[in-house]
């Protein structure tokens, strides 16, 4: 039996197959997928809630409090925790609750600002080094190796000493009057931490870029005549965002840790501005009689760093399942 051409290529009934081919769910983007995985991680979500809460308290707490961080209430010195002063008052009659909240502003801002500086330097340094490769890369990485082998804390301390003195004079100039409120101590903490901690970021970005630049879409972009800068900014860096975010999240607690350490040894913010480290330092003298003065700032530091660490771990698992331990 001969079949005609028309009979051989008869279209099938479309409706019969349509149902089977419908995808069971819309495909997920990388970020959607990561968010789904993150949501399943209870510890990470709880830490995220804690972090958001701390941020809100730091921003709005000092505004809502009836006291200011430097206000000395006469006749109410050295009070223990009570309804009126949840964290008590210090020897000058300042409300500790508002001081700890204000300290949160300082400590969190150090974490955030230092990380922005880290990010900017780290991404560009690592990006350029990884993308151009060859001699540029080996020279840039040698420099990073040397900086990496310098003990960080020593350099943060040394930079603090110098920057504080330098900035004190600079801040007296009229152009910087806006920055005067922050004080030279705080600004030098931002700079000192920002200028020393970018090295690990640069290394991670470089590693990412090195492997990404061999991918086909980069070749495609090159063929289309995209400039190096465009490829770096539009293709390579967005695709390494996952590990950049994870590294940032884990650098924030480091920066907060360092700030409290510096303030504790007397190198931090200028009095009367409180930071958690300087509050703990101030409490040392009266620890035997007023233990709560030390307890609350210490708890604040520990809870914040713990939350950031746990959230960072969760984020790493969510963004890069291969890195899961």
């Amino acid at each position, binding site marked *: 039996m001969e079949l005609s051409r028309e009979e051989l290529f008869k279209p099938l009934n479309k409706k019969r197959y349509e149902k089977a081919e419908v995808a069971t769910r819309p495909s997920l983007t990388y970020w959607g997928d990561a968010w789904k995985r993150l949501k399943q991680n209870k510890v990470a979500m709880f830490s995220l809630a804690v972090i958001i809460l701390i941020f809100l308290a730091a921003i709005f707490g000092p505004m809502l409090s009836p006291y200011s961080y430097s206000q000395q209430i006469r006749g109410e010195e050295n009070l223990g925790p009570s309804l009126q002063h949840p964290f008590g008052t210090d020897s000058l009659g300042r409300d500790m609750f508002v001081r700890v909240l204000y300290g949160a502003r300082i400590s969190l801002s150090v974490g955030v600002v230092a990380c922005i500086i880290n990010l900017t330097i780290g991404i560009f340094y690592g990006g350029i080094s990884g993308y151009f490769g060859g001699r540029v890369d080996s020279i840039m990485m040698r420099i990073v190796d040397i900086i990496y082998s310098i003990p960080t804390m*020593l350099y943060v301390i040394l930079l603090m*000493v*110098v920057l504080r003195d330098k900035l004190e004079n600079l801040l007296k100039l009229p152009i910087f009057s806006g920055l005067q409120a922050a004080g030279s101590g705080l600004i030098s903490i931002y700079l000192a931490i920002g200028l020393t901690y970018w090295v690990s970021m640069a290394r991670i970005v470089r590693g990412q870029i090195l492997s990404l630049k061999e991918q086909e879409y980069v070749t495609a972009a090159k063929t289309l005549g995209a400039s190096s800068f465009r490829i770096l900014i539009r293709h390579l860096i967005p695709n390494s965002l996952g590990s950049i975010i994870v590294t940032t999240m884990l650098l924030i*607690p480091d920066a907060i840790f360092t700030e409290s350490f510096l303030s504790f040894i007397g190198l931090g913010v200028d009095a009367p501005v409180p930071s958690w480290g300087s509050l703990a330092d101030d409490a040392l003298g009266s*620890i035997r009689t007023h233990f709560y003065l030390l307890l609350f700032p210490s708890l604040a*530091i*520990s809870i914040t760093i713990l939350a950031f660490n746990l959230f960072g771990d969760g984020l790493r698992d969510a963004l890069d399942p291969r890195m899961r*331990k």
Partner: protein
Amino acid sequence: MFGYILKRFAYSIFTLFVIITITFFIMHAIPGNVYNSEKNLPPAIVENIRAKYGLDKPLSEQYITMLKNTIKLDFGISMKNRGRPVNDIITEHFPHSARLGIFSIALCLFIGIPLGVLSALKKDKWQDRMAMIIATLGVSVPGFVVAVLSQYLLGVKLKWFPVIGDKSFIHLILPAVALSFLPISFIARLVRSSMVEVLEQDYIRTARAKGLSERVVIYKHALKNSIMPVITYLGPLIAGVLTGSFVIESIFNIPGLGRYFVTSINNRDYTVTMGVTIFYAVFLVLMNFIVDVLYTVLDPRIKLKN
């Protein structure tokens, strides 16, 4: 092998040179000097003092003099402390720090490694969970908080330990615990993850198949490879204990170099700050060099690149 060591050594020397140079120029970026803050001295006296410390010479000449002196391990004279040589200060105070540091590092290794091994062997059981909760807390609580809390609770309240000083071994327990709190947690996590990995390897299965007892398999075969990452961590560990001691020594009133360093910063005693920084840098770079060499000797899997 020998070539590799030589190369590492040259590299360490170069790093040190860079560190010394950076330190020198950072310190010289400070406007004025220590005498500006004191009472208005007559200019002639300021000139004299500047001449005494060589500050009147051009920067390049000062830099070369400083390099020469550093090679001779001579860090100059304290500016605040009536002409006391920085070397004297280091030799007097460093032994206190070293004693505390060695004790802390021993504590880190003898608690951290078993904790990691335990949680790897009991993976996902309650022992593992407990150990990892402790480890997570450990990396979140700053050393000075541990120091002050333990000093207050165990020293002042319960009177189990002496509160200050480093006269005897018992005096050192609290400061050493505070210093090693964070590294213990870090080492425990490190050992756990590497041990989990090692236990899955073929040679462990072979060892078990040979009929060796579990104890021999774990302690003779698995442990050796599991603690390799700890050796790489030794460099940062020493650095951490050293910088941690800045605070811990002040809290426990131990006359170590760390405490002196902090005092020198607050006094703006720049020669001491710079001398001690360089001393620490030399010490740490040397330790890193030793650790590097040790690692290649112990782990034959590392391929030495020409």
